[in-house]
């Protein structure tokens, strides 16, 4: 159905030309689902854009052929291509929040393609849109078709987008990270829906994702991309259970798995090669623990049994597992003194926000409607010194607000907070000096958490200067030791945020929190913005720091498997309340609350029983 041969794509950038894809060949059979897996920078989205003919202006295609149903679409006139794009192939984008036009009704957007490609009248298209919305499992499709995008939840919007893509009865559906922006329970529903549609309509799908668990649920075939090349390609179960290429091995080893608590995760050291001058030999060699002198020679994608692997050593490596390269030697696990007083005590904490104060008509006169949400609703938690309390919940459950309320970055409405024995909830902000030193925070987004105009040295030196922790002359030395603590070389002190990778930035963020020698750190989704291989290294680092320094964490994440790996205890949050709290193992193995059970069963896993389709009814949200 879709055949891509030898496709190379280059991008012109101010820093020079980079090769985003190098001789990619994939073939998607009719009715099959091929998944492209890779981390950021691997070029997976470029494949989707190239197939749709939507590459940006900076892109050039020096070589390659893309054939759709036997017709070469690259030699096609632009108009014919546009016709094809709207009718026989369709694309679903990653972010359902920005793709829909906010000023058009859902029904108009879903039916839009029909008006242009099938000469439907606007009314007929709208009627068809309602049918399509019904097909993708939206309850009350008539009302939803008349709604505007902002009135819909993320899951509903993604359903609407899929409905729009299906409107023109396409044969090929390209999905670019369709569930990445969604919560796990919604993700499970969308995957379920895609599976049903595939069976019902015989769709061919090209599915792009960084999440191997998701891929396992949906795809027959997997191609693993690294630095613009396919490094391994074959049947999904084969590759996920017995990866051969070292990168695939590393990627799988880096994923924290539910119910399998190890001391440290396996991490892939290093970073992507510079794609302006891609290495002649194996592109992964610099990060590969199995690299041999042969790796310097150009690698070709060759057949090995049923799969294709780009590695000269593939035969030898077939059964070798990824070595357990912990990010540093795991030390003695920290054990808190049993009788010590808790470092953080929060009692009956509440916080509510007024969302919108729009107005509606009551009879003939307008009346203000106030919508209030309560992201923190009468919550009490305690954290012992050196303990990791994991906080799990879906978006909007109030996890971030709870973390910030404990630190008084958000003012609580009621309740008491005690940190290190000091009651901090009734003091004015300027009297919080001691607490600000004891309790720190690590943020989610490494791009936003570091001031782009300051060097790492300034960023790390400021807290030390602010609290007078060292004489001015000693600050550079303290900065160096902080960098050493998070395993960054000392010369990073001169770098700016934009000169570092995401993982490095997050390390600096952690170092900044550690600069005041705190006893408690709120980690607010510290790994959510990172790739799997980097995520593993950061999680290991946090675990090491806990063991060495005895810092307690409130570890907030939407990813239960990461939380389960790191935390001693886990709290599950739902609509502003903690619905279940207990030892991590107990929660993972024997969850009590129905919401916890739902959350756990929705997590896409890379192991466990094969293909878990059909176990979660596609419930409308």
């Amino acid at each position, binding site marked *: 159905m879709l055949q891509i041969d030898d496709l190379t794509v280059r*991008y012109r*950038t101010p820093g020079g030309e980079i090769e985003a894809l190098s001789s990619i060949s994939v073939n998607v059979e009719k009715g099959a689902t091929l998944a492209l897996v890779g981390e950021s920078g691997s070029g997976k989205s470029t494949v989707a854009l190239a197939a749709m003919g939507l590459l940006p202006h900076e892109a050039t295609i020096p070589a390659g052929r893309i054939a759709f149903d036997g017709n070469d679409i690259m030699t096609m006139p632009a108009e014919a291509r546009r016709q094809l794009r709207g009718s026989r192939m369709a694309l679903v984008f990653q972010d359902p929040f920005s793709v829909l036009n906010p000023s058009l009704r859902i029904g108009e957007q879903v039916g839009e393609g029909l008006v242009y490609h099938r000469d439907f009248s606007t009314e007929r298209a709208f009627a068809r849109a309602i049918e399509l919305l019904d097909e993708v499992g939206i309850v009350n499709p008539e009302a939803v078709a008349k709604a505007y995008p902002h009135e819909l939840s993320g899951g509903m919007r993604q359903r609407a987008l899929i409905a729009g893509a299906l409107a023109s009865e396409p044969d090929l559906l390209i999905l670019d990270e369709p569930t990445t922006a969604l919560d796990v329970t919604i993700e499970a529903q969308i995957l379920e829906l895609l599976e049903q549609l595939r069976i019902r309509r015989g769709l061919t799908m090209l599915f792009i994702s960084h999440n191997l668990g998701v891929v396992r649920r949906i795809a027959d075939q997997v191609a693993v991309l690294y630095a613009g090349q396919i490094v391994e390609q074959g049947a999904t179960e084969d590759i996920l259970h017995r990866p051969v290429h070292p990168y695939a091995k590393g990627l799988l080893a880096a994923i924290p798995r539910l119910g399998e608590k190890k001391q440290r995760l396996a991490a892939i050291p290093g970073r992507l090669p510079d794609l302006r001058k891609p290495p002649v030999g194996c592109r992964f060699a610099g990060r590969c623990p199995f690299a041999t002198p042969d790796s310097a020679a150009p690698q070709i994608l060759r057949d090995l049994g049923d799969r294709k692997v780009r590695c000269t050593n593939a035969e030898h490596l077939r059964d070798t597992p990824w070595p357990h390269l912990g990010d540093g030697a795991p030390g003695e696990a920290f054990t808190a003194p049993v009788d010590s007083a808790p470092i953080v005590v929060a009692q009956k904490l509440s916080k509510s926000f007024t969302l919108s104060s729009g107005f509606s008509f009551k009879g003939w006169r307008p009346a203000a409607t106030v919508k209030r949400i309560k992201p923190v609703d009468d919550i009490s938690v305690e954290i012992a010194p050196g303990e990791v309390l994991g906080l799990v919940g879906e978006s909007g459950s109030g996890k971030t607000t709870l973390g910030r309320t404990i630190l008084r970055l958000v003012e609580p409405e009621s309740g008491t907070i005690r940190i290190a024995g000091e009651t901090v909830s009734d003091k004015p902000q300027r009297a*919080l000096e001691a607490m600000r030193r004891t309790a720190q925070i690590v943020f989610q987004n490494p791009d936003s958490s570091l001031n782009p105009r300051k060097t790492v040295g300034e960023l790390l030196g400021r807290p030390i200067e*602010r609290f007078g922790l060292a004489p001015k002359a000693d600050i550079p030395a303290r900065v160096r030791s902080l960098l050493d603590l998070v395993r960054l070389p000392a010369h990073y002190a001169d770098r700016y945020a934009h000169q570092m990778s995401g993982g490095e930035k997050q390390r600096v963020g952690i170092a900044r929190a550690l600069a005041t020698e705190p006893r408690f750190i709120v980690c607010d989704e510290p790994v959510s913005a990172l790739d799997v291989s980097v995520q593993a290294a950061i999680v290991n680092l946090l675990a090491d720091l806990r063991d060495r320094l005895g810092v307690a964490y409130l570890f907030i994440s939407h990813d239960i498997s990461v939380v389960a790996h790191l935390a001693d205890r886990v709290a599950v949050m739902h609509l502003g309340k903690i619905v279940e709290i207990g030892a991590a193992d107990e929660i993972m193995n024997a969850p009590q609350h129905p919401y916890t059970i739902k959350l756990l069963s929705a997590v896409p896993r890379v192991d466990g029983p094969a293909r878990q389709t059909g176990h979660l009814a596609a419930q409308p949200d």
Partner: protein
Amino acid sequence: MSVEQTVETAAVEAAPRRPLPMQLKVGLAITGTIVILGLLAPWIAPYPWDTISMKTRFVAPNTTFWFGTDEYGRDVLSRTLMGTRLSLAMGVSATLVSLAVGVPMGLAAGYFRGWVDELLMRAADVLMAIPAIMLGLLVLAVTPPTLWKTSLAVGFVYIPPIARLARSVTLTLANEEFIQAAKARAEKTSYILFREILPNAWPPLIVEASLRVTYAILLGSALSFLGLGAQPPSSDWGLMIAEARSFIDRAPWIALTPGFAMCLLVIGVNLLGDGARERLDPRLKTRMGKS
């Protein structure tokens, strides 16, 4: 998404050595030349700028007087060169006035929100509601006009746009996590405003300020033209054009020379500002790679 990421990884190493943008080079060349000429004017001007000579009235441009002479026989080139200093001083000092008031105003409004925002921005709105020339007239009409009062008045007129820009930049920056991080170490508000937010607000402010320099030069000249700025026999460009207006049919060079000079300076400073933005904004290059 991966496109952007790829660009980022590539940009990591490339960051320090980026070529200067073309606009910046051209802008620097034009503005630099004008500034140097202005500074050296007393030494390089071929004739005294204020000596009246009735024998050489209305001489058309020739080899002796490259740009001709005016109605009092003064060399137009010498006067224009001397006028450069006045125009530059006017533009720069007016802009400094508006920055000094507008930036703290905008920072406070954007950071505190609520009633502080309302109070400051409504005050700016009131200021904006009065046409620039009117405001200048108002200030200058009640007191005898001098050059420094003109630049103060012009600076005053340009407070609202600077304050608005500073506010809008602050609004976005105030939501960044590094501001939360600063709060989490109990930093003083003044530190957050001037050390965390301001350095990030500079690039758009510099661009805006450079545009304001050119507007200020034009407005200052306009006020001088109306007789409310520099006073004769001063050789302010606006004033020169005003005086030459009556002879525009007989001796167009008297008005055209300072006119061209002003034009060139405005273009030069604008290019400079545009180039500076491209150069200063660390995030612009990822955006360029993406779109």
